[in-house]
């Protein structure tokens, strides 16, 4: 299964989906060196946003990635909005939509702790590096500890005068 993060992001943005890029792709975006295959996003679980999500996948069949047999998504927007997380798989790859991002909180908290960046001429929200470090430290798994270590160094470096950040 290919992973087309560029097309996933473009579709989400163009459909007006409310989301914030978090976790692995966000860490890579800040300069961490661990590539991640899937795309994780904090997602506003409302009916309106779920409708926009379904529009984003117009013409692309989507499945629940973590269900027996990976059953197709047949729920309507209201049913999707009642979920806490949504793990999607399609020909564009894997997209994990998270309603909670411990210890940061829900979507609104993630949004508050994010900033706008430009991707292919479009604005997209990226979680800020402090919140991302908190998430990685809270997860505490070996791979998250490693990424958090790099992020702390990146934060330290970017707070040093005369140094990038470029674009974040």
């Amino acid at each position: 299964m290919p992973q087309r993060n560029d097309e996933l992001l473009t579709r989400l943005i163009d459909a007006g989906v409310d989301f914030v890029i978090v976790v692995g792709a966000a860490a890579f975006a800040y300069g961490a060196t661990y590539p991640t295959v899937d795309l994780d996003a904090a997602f506003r679980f409302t009916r309106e946003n779920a409708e926009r999500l379904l529009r984003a996948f117009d013409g692309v069949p989507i499945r629940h990635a973590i269900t027996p047999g990976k059953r197709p998504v047949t729920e309507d927007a209201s049913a999707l909005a009642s979920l806490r997380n949504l793990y999607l798989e399609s020909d564009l790859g894997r997209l994990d939509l998270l309603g909670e991002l411990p210890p940061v909180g829900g979507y609104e908290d993630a949004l508050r702790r994010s900033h706008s960046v430009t991707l292919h001429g479009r604005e997209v929200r990226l979680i800020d590096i402090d919140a991302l470090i908190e998430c990685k430290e809270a997860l505490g798994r070996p791979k998250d500890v490693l990424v958090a270590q790099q992020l702390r160094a990146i934060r330290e470096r970017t707070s040093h005068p005369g140094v990038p950040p470029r674009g974040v």
Partner: protein
Amino acid sequence: MDQTRALLEMYADRGPAWRAAIEAGHDMSLVEQAMHRTFEQRIEDLQRAIDSLAALREAVIERAAAERRTPDATH
């Protein structure tokens, strides 16, 4: 000189978090390199990394299949 010592010398003027990352085994020259890219370039780098790793995996699968077909043909 091992990589960790070389990196510690290279980045002798950096702060404690940067040095801690080096001591933990991270090649911070790669991080430094990434930090000179823009956000958009890094997202494109990630897509290229995904694509190239997928291509490498496909090559491994193809080689294994070829070995099963003709065990002596590949080395």
